[in-house]
């Protein structure tokens, strides 16, 4: 009996990891944009949803094969992010943080309602390159799709880490986020870095959306539930660390699932709230972040 309970608990953890991998992916996109532009993008989830709809349209309306459709979507997402930064975010760059938050909220409303308007609110299935079966490990049932999502998240995390830490471009982007004036003084094209940061993060969001869509179905509000947990994950792991985003996202997924199973499903959002609050109060830099010192 005890063993059976342990097994069902372990199964809950596994399901939690599967939900958490989606939070982790979106949290990664949030971290990328924060690392490269010092902005928290509230429209991240909606941009991911919007670009996933583009992929859906290419696949089902125009019959484009899967891989070219993904590639086209990524290009579209990159351009979308790039343009959004250049046209909408740049003018408020020097304004207080409040203005930027409000602008990203405006983008949130626009993407959400335009998607609902163009594609409607009926949830749609999204094709997946991975079959829907399950595999069994030590008596635990694990979805192939979940393994695929988790694997992609880990690969992207490593790539992102290498990009931000080991390449000149990544370093330039971090420098831009850290201190714009100093970055400008050493010859970094600050404006281009900011646009690039938004473009890359939108492309990453598109990946997150396309990976998540077979699992949570495609509809304009698909990211409403995910974004909050992605925020919780990003904050938990530290907004400054790709590894933290993954770990935080997975952790949030596991905690959420366990709580849902043991206490009550309706309190999940409350849990996210308390988790965000507790982490921010006790350890504002997150579990894996480093303190960023500011001169006053």
């Amino acid at each position, binding site marked *: 009996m005890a063993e059976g309970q342990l097994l069902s608990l372990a199964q809950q953890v596994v399901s939690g990891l599967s939900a958490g991998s989606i939070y982790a992916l979106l949290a990664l996109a949030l971290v990328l944009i924060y690392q490269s532009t010092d902005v928290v993008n509230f429209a991240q989830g909606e941009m991911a949803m919007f670009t996933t709809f583009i992929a859906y349209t290419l696949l089902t309306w125009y019959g484009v094969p899967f891989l070219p459709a993904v590639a086209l979507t990524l290009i579209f997402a990159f351009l979308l992010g790039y343009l959004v930064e250049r046209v909408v975010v740049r003018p408020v760059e020097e304004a207080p943080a409040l203005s930027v938050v409000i602008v990203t909220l405006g983008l949130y409303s626009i993407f959400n309602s335009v998607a*609902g308007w163009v594609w409607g609110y009926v949830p749609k299935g999204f094709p997946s390159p991975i079959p829907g079966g399950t595999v069994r490990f030590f008596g635990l049932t694990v979805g192939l799709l979940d393994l695929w999502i988790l694997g992609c998240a880990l690969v992207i995390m490593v790539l992102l880490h290498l990009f931000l830490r080991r390449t000149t471009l990544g370093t330039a982007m971090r420098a831009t986020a850290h201190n714009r004036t100093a970055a400008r003084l050493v010859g970094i094209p600050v404006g281009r870095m900011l646009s690039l940061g938004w473009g890359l993060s939108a492309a990453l969001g598109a990946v997150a959306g396309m990976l998540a869509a077979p699992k949570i179905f495609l509809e304009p509000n698909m990211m409403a539930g995910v974004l909050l947990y992605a925020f919780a994950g990003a904050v938990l792991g530290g907004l400054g660390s790709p590894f933290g985003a993954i770990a935080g996202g997975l952790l949030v997924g596991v905690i959420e699932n366990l709580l849902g199973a043991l206490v009550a499903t309706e309190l999940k959002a409350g849990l996210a709230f308390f988790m965000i609050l507790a982490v921010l109060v006790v350890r504002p830099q997150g579990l894996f972040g480093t303190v960023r010192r500011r001169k006053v």
Partner: protein
Amino acid sequence: MAGRILLAVLVICLLAAPLFVNQFANFVLSRMAVYAVVALGLNLLTGYSGQISLGHGAFFAIGAYGAAIVANRLGLPWPLCILAGGLAAGLAGYLLGWPSLRLTGPYLAIATLALAVAVPQALLKFEGVTGGVQGLKLSQPRSPAGLGLAQDQWLAYICLVTAMAMVWLTVNLVRSRIGRAFIALRDSEIAAQAVGVSLSRFKTLAFAISAFYTGLAGGLLAYLLGYIAPDAFTLVVSIEFLTMVVIGGLASVAGSVIGAAIIVVLPLLGSNLTDYLAGLLNLVGLSAVGATTKGLIWAVYGVILILVMVFLPGGLVSLYYKAKDFWAGAWPREKGVRPGGV
């Protein structure tokens, strides 16, 4: 002097209006008054104290449910119930104020966003108290026999008079020691603390007062509708609140009222506009079968939010101040060094 006369005329017109307009117009007028109270509260926090909140929908819900629960369980007269709603929300705001001392900018936005999502779900969960999906009913206040007002007229008066009292209160509050402390903390926490303004006391106070206003408005709404349910307090409501403050003008009492009026009227005009836009989209063949104009008003809100932030960061009232060449100090927009070409 001219300003005072204008204000007096406006007040008299507003007070006379419920007697002459139809039921629907009275409802719209009442909603404007309710939203104006929220806008004043949110503006105290966001405009005057510089603290962003995406969670005011939660305080609105706490106020509405607080009033309804007190009314149904204790059977107190309606003014006390509305006040109870305000106080409940104020307490919640005060409690949120403490952790918020450590949060700035986007982090505060994230935390309050989580609150806005959490509260409606909690309302669903604690069915015994909140009625779950069904929501709560409460009986609307009846006009005193001597006045002979219809139900909608009496409700409109309750909302209008409350809103006017709150406007008066806010104008005085921002000029008081407390208001000056809010503004000082917004402009520079370090400088304000250096001259003896207590950061913890005034920040928590800003949250408490702001939430109190919003809860009061929630109580008013509960009586205005006579029925409340969790789906009236989604995240969308919180964004709506922020939109009206930004459109009207941050750190401006007049701006709060103007923003509230616009956000109430806009959806009424909106259905025509969005139908028109949908027609346009159909024309170029972009629209899918079964596409709907439902919710397109949110795209309009989004565009307005961005346009205002980019071109008119002081909101609509700043047009007036600009015209008067009296722009300094209302919401100082930091103009950093901005070398071209990068």
